[in-house]
C-alpha cells in the first residue's frame, strides 16, 4: 500500500481553508495525515540473510566439518528497527491565504508542486467573495473579528476599526456603489493592459482582449478584471471580485477605499475565495476529508482539468513568444517592419 499509495500522490488538489487557521499549520496537518495513511500500509516482507554454518557433514563417520548455507531471517527491515517507511512528503502551497481569510486553497503533492508555479504563471483568474460592513457595530463579537481581521494590516486599519464615531449615513445608495465599482474596474483594466505589455493596436492583442485572455506578463500588483456588488443591505454589502495576483491585504484596502469614495468608512469583515482557477468550492476538501483516500481521489478527479488548462496556457504563452517567423500568417494590415517592432515590444 505504501509505495502504491505514494505513486498516486502526485498532482494538485484543493482544500477549503477555514478562517483562523494559519496556512502553514494547514500544510503540516495535511502532510501528517498523508504520512499516517501511507505508513499504515503493510510492512515490508522480512529480509533473509545467508549464513554459512559449520557443522558435521551428514553421512560420514569421521567428524568432518563442512559449511552449509542457511537462510536466517534478518531484522534489518523490521519497522521497529528502521522506523516508519515514509517520513517526509513534498507538499507545496498554491496562492496563499492569510489567517483570517478562508476559501479554496490549492495544494500540490510530489510532482504536482512543479505545476503550482505553472498555474500561477498561467494567470488563471481567481474570484473572491467578501462581505463588508459599512458601519462599525458595537457588538463585541463583530468588533473582535474586525480587529483581528485588521491585525495583519498596518496600524492604520486598527484605528479604523476602533473609531466608532461613524454612523451609517443615508447618502450611500446602490447606484453610487455601482458607479464606484465600475470606476475601479475600468482603472484596473487599463493597468492590466499595461502590465501585459501588449500593444492593443495589434490584431492579435485585440482578439485576445476580446476573448478576455489578457494576462500580466511579470510580477504585478493586484489586478481586478471584474467587480460587482452581489448584495446591498446597508450597512452591509457583498462584493464579488475577479482578480489576479491579489493579496488579502490589498483586498481589504480596496474595501476601505470604496468606503472613502462613498464619503464614509468601510471595513472588510470577511474574505473568502470561492474559486482558484478551475478549483471551485465543490472540489475543495473540508477538514474532515484531509486523509489519504480523499486526497488521492481529489487528485485523480482534478488531473484531466489540470492537464487541459496547462496545455492551453502553455499554448497561449508559446503563441505570444513566437517571434515573427516566415510561415506566420498574420492578418495585420501594418507594414511588416513596424509589425516586427511591435511584436518585439510585446515582450
Amino acid at each position, binding site marked *: 500500500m505504501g509505495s502504491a499509495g505514494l505513486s498516486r500522490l502526485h498532482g494538485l488538489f484543493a482544500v*477549503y481553508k*477555514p*478562517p*483562523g*487557521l494559519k496556512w502553514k499549520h494547514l500544510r503540516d496537518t495535511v502532510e501528517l495525515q498523508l504520512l499516517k495513511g501511507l505508513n499504515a500500509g503493510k510492512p515490508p516482507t522480512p529480509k533473509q*540473510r545467508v549464513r*554459512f554454518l*559449520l557443522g558435521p557433514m551428514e553421512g560420514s563417520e569421521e567428524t*568432518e*566439518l*563442512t*559449511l552449509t548455507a542457511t537462510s536466517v531471517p*534478518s*531484522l*534489518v527491515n*523490521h519497522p*521497529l*528497527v*528502521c*522506523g*516508519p517507511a515514509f517520513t517526509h512528503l513534498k507538499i507545496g502551497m498554491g496562492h496563499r491565504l492569510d489567517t483570517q481569510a*478562508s476559501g479554496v486553497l490549492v495544494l500540490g503533492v510530489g510532482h504536482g508542486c512543479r505545476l503550482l508555479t505553472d498555474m500561477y504563471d498561467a494567470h488563471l483568474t481567481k474570484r473572491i467573495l467578501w462581505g463588508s460592513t459599512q458601519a462599525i457595530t458595537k457588538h*463585541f*463579537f463583530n468588533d473582535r473579528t474586525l480587529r483581528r481581521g485588521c491585525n495583519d494590516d498596518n496600524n492604520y486599519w486598527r484605528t479604523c476599526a476602533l473609531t466608532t464615531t461613524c454612523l451609517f449615513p443615508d447618502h450611500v445608495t446602490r447606484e453610487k456603489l455601482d458607479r464606484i465599482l465600475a470606476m475601479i474596474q475600468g482603472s484596473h483594466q487599463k493597468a492590466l493592459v499595461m502590465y501585459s505589455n501588449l500593444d492593443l493596436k495589434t490584431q492579435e492583442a485585440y482578439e485576445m482582449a476580446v476573448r478576455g485572455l489578457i494576462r500580466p506578463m511579470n510580477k504585478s500588483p493586484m489586478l481586478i478584471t471584474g467587480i460587482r456588488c452581489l448584495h446591498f443591505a446597508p450597512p452591509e454589502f457583498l462584493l464579488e471580485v475577479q482578480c489576479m495576483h491579489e493579496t488579502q491585504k490589498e483586498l481589504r484596502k480596496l474595501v476601505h477605499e470604496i468606503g472613502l469614495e462613498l464619503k464614509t468608512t468601510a471595513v472588510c469583515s470577511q474574505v*473568502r475565495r470561492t474559486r482558484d482557477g478551475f478549483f471551485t*468550492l465543490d472540489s*475543495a476538501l*473540508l*477538514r*474532515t476529508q484531509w486523509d489519504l483516500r480523499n486526497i488521492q481521489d481529489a487528485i485523480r478527479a482534478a488531473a484531466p482539468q489540470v492537464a487541459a488548462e496547462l496545455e492551453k496556457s502553455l499554448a497561449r504563452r508559446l503563441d505570444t513568444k513566437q517571434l515573427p517567423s516566415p510561415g506566420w500568417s498574420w492578418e495585420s494590415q501594418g507594414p511588416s517592419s513596424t509589425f516586427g517592432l511591435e511584436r518585439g515590444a510585446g515582450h
Partner: protein
Amino acid sequence: MALSAQQIPRWFNSAKLRSLINAAQLTKCFTRPGRTLLHGFSAQPQISSDNCFLQWGFKTYKTSSLWNSSQSTSSSSQENNSTQSSLLPSMDEQSQKPQKIPSFDSELFLEELDELPPLSPMQPISEEEAIQIIADPPLPPASFTLRDYVDHSETLQKLVLLGVDLSKIEKHTEAANLLLRLDFEKDIKQMLLFLKDVGIEDNQLGAFLTKNHAIFSEDLENLKIRVAYLHSKNFSKADVAQMVRKAPFLLNFSVERLDNRLGFFQKELELSVKKTRDLVVRLPRLLTGSLEPVKENMKVYHLELGFKHNEIQHMITRIPKMLTANKRKLTETFDFVHNVMSIPHHIIVKFPQVFNTRLFKIKERHLFLTYLGRAQYDPAKPNYISLDKLVSIPDEIFCEEIAKASVQDFDKFLKTL
C-alpha cells in the same frame, strides 16, 4: 616515562613476533583458531591480524573483536560505538585468554597480538582450516543507527520481538550504547520480570520500554522501594500498574520527589486524600510533568476566568486534563463560550468538556446552530441543547439529532464560513 616503559615491550613484542613469523611455527598458529572456533563463533581471518599489530593505535578494536568473538556472553560488547571505554570490557576478557604473555601490563593492547603469529596469505593451509575461516564483513565500529547491529546482537533481537521501537531509542546515543552493552539474560530479564510484577502486561512492555529506556540504568532496589512507597500511600496494585503504564517515567522519580509532588497537589487543589489519589491515577502525567503550568492554570481559572474555588475543584475532578491545558487555548475557548455563546459560569461548570475540545469544533457547530436558529443553551427554555451534546458527539449524530439537518448541509454551511 610510562610511555617509554611501554614502548620497550612493544618493540620487544614485535621482535618476538617477527621471530615467530620466520620460525616454522605454523602449526601453533593453526591450533589457535581451531580452539577459538570451538565456541561456535566466527573469528576474523588470520590475514587481518597483519595490520593489527603494525598500526596498533587504530585497529585495536578490530583485534578486540577478533578475540572477543570467542566469548559468547560478551558478544554485544564488541559492537560498541566510538567511546574509549568500549575497549575496557575487552581487556577483562584478555585475562582469560590462554597463553597470554603475562609479563607486560594489561594496558598494552599489543599483548594479544603475540598469540597470533602473522600469516601470509600465500601459505598453504589444510581444507579443514580453510573451511573454518569465516570472512564476514566486519561490523562498523561506530554507527548512528542500531540497524547495523541488530542481526548480531541477541539483546536487540529479543527487544524487537518484545515490541520495543529501536528507531526511537537510537536517537538517544547513551541509551543505544547502554542497550548494546547490556546482556539480555543478566540485566534486562530481571528488569522485565520486575515490571511484570508491578503489573504491566506483556504486550505493553514494548511501548513502556520505548518511552522509558532509561530504566535500565536504574537500580532495581530503588525501583522496588518506590513501588513499596506507592503501596504505602494506599495505591492499589492495579492503580500502580495503570500509573506506570500511562506515565512510564514515574518509577525514575525518587521517593522524596514523588512525595513532594503528591503533597503539592493535595495542598494546591485542597481536595480530600481519596480524590487526589483518584486524580493522580487518572492522570499520572501530573506527577511526572512540570508543576509550573499547573500553578499558572489554577491562577487563570481563578483570576482570569472567574471561577470559584469549589467550581474549579469540581471541574478538575471531572476532567483532570484541564490542569495541564494550554493557557492561550483555554482563554480563547472560554472567551468564545462565555461571550459569544453567552453561556454563564454555572452551566460551564456542569460541562467542563468544553475545555477539552478544539475551538474550531465548538465554533463550527455553534455557528451552524445559529444559522438554523436552534442555538438554545438556556436550560429553562424549550429546545435546550446541552454543552456536552454540542461538543462530545460525532458529526453524523450531531447533525441528525441536534441540528436536525443532513451532513451535506453541514458541509455546505462550513464552506460558507
